[in-house]
């Protein structure tokens, strides 16, 4: 019985030690351009994120390392044009992939926006499972801006998204 208990504890400790601590990854200066004419209501824009693990993980990267899981920890959105965030009622940030096995996930949103606040912090979904997006070579970040009225020109927003990724 004692030997069995010792083996169990050893296995548990080995399991704990093999789990890597999460690595923070920040995607900055992601520019989402919405080309007019824009309609009152939700208008989408997308950015393709190319995954290069050595660049992403920096000195934490080891040869052969893959990513097991990922969570979004924060999202900041600011206007990248002279219009500011006026006229924007809400934002939704989603992840999408060309992989047929990986479905789109809404990961963060803010509704409504507080007047005069820029940049804004989106509310992150704690239940959103994002690991599959980091197992491929790329994924899309999709920003939906809900506009209060039609607009003939272009709108541009800049996003900073922070993740915790879990390497194998």
């Amino acid at each position: 019985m004692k030997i069995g208990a010792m083996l169990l504890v050893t296995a548990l400790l080995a399991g704990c030690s093999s789990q890597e601590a999460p690595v923070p990854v920040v995607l900055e200066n992601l520019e989402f351009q919405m080309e007019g004419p824009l309609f009152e209501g939700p208008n989408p824009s997308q950015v393709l994120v190319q995954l290069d693990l050595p660049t992403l993980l920096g000195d934490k990267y080891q040869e052969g390392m893959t990513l097991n899981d990922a969570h979004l920890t924060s999202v900041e959105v600011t206007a990248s044009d002279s219009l500011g965030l006026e006229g924007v009622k809400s934002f939704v940030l989603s992840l999408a992939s060309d992989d047929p096995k990986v479905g789109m996930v809404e990961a963060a949103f803010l509704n409504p926006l507080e007047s005069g606040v820029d940049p804004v912090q989106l509310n992150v979904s704690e239940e959103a499972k994002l690991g599959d997006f980091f197992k491929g070579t790329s994924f899309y970040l999709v920003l939906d801006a809900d506009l209060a009225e039609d607009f003939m020109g272009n709108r541009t927003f800049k996003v900073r998204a922070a993740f915790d990724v879990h390497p194998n």
Partner: protein
Amino acid sequence: MKKFLLILSVAVLGLSQVGFEQQADPGDRLLGVWEPSNGRARVKIEKIGAKYYGKIVWLIEPIDPETKLPKTDKNNPDPALKSAPLKGYRMLKDFVYTGKDTWTEGTIYDPLNGSTYSCTIKMKDNNTLDIRGYIGVQALGRTDVWKRLVVQTPAKK
């Protein structure tokens, strides 16, 4: 000889034009604004990467009678998304064109009960879609017929 070369050039250009038009993605015929049979909403289908997605762009009753505010996705099983605006929500996701006027591998979300179903789309003609949502196997599902809308561009201000 010159006349022959001229005719040949025109023929080659004509065939090139046909070839160019045929290279357009046939799956993109799904793009546009569509209305389900109950007429209570309109859905705009767009392309992100290689897949097709549909979001609600109009609701017949956009205001929640209880809150007097724009309707939100209050039945969403994810607590963080319960206050996401319903208008703008992507109820169709991840469709891939698989040929023969059919898009598969997607899902359809029902905001009335917060449930997500597997879904296939079949284009009956350029203005008519059969949207079939199901659980498990297609035989255990329901088909709704959607019609294409023509969208007016906003007036200049």
